[in-house]
């Protein structure tokens, strides 16, 4: 049963990550790309945590801590130093 759960969860994580990558590639404005990269980081965090939960170890917890702390810096700097009224 846990293998079926792992396969379903992996498919959902992969689809979510792929949709976020699609929005990064296409995204009409730079803010859409920033939001999509945040979603990509959150997907990576959740996937690492799900791997820990399914395999019953805690090796990735420091990675999760660092990602939770520093994932904000990219979107923060882009949102802060965004040039006004770009049309890209």
């Amino acid at each position, binding site marked *: *049963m*846990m293998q079926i*759960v*792992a396969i*379903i*969860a*992996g498919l*959902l*994580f992969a*689809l*979510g*990550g*792929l*949709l*976020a990558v*699609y*929005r990064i590639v296409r995204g009409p*404005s730079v*803010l*859409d790309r*920033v*939001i*999509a990269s*945040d*979603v990509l980081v*959150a*997907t990576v*965090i*959740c*996937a690492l*945590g*799900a791997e*820990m*939960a*399914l395999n*019953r*170890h*805690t090796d990735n*917890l*420091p990675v*999760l*801590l660092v990602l*939770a*702390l520093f*994932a*904000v810096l990219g*979107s*923060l700097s882009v*949102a*802060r130093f*965004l*040039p*006004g*009224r*770009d049309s890209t």
Partner: protein
Amino acid sequence: MSDAVHDVLTAVLVLAGALMCFAAGVGLLRFPDVFSRIHASTKPQIFGLMAITTDVAVNNFNVGTVTLIVAIVLFQALTAPMAAHLVGRAAYGTEHLRPDLLIVDELAGRGAPGSPGAAFVRQPPPD
């Protein structure tokens, strides 16, 4: 805790987190403008992370794990709303929004100096 209950709890929490990530991807794809995409993107950042880390804590219940997980959720809950707020403010200031989708625009009349929305708008550089 018995083994079957343990497995079911693990499966439910992992699937909840995975479903949140997938829903955020679909929301990014389907929603029309920046604000609604922010709404979609903040779900896996908090709820998905809480589900997954609760799962890890259930599987390895000791002091070190729970402390680290509380720190992870705390830092994510501090930084994710800050990023979303800044992106939303930048979206309003640089007009990356669709005014026809807004129900209430409390910052309307923002161009006038001294109005409530004046701080949110980046003034064009003087020529």
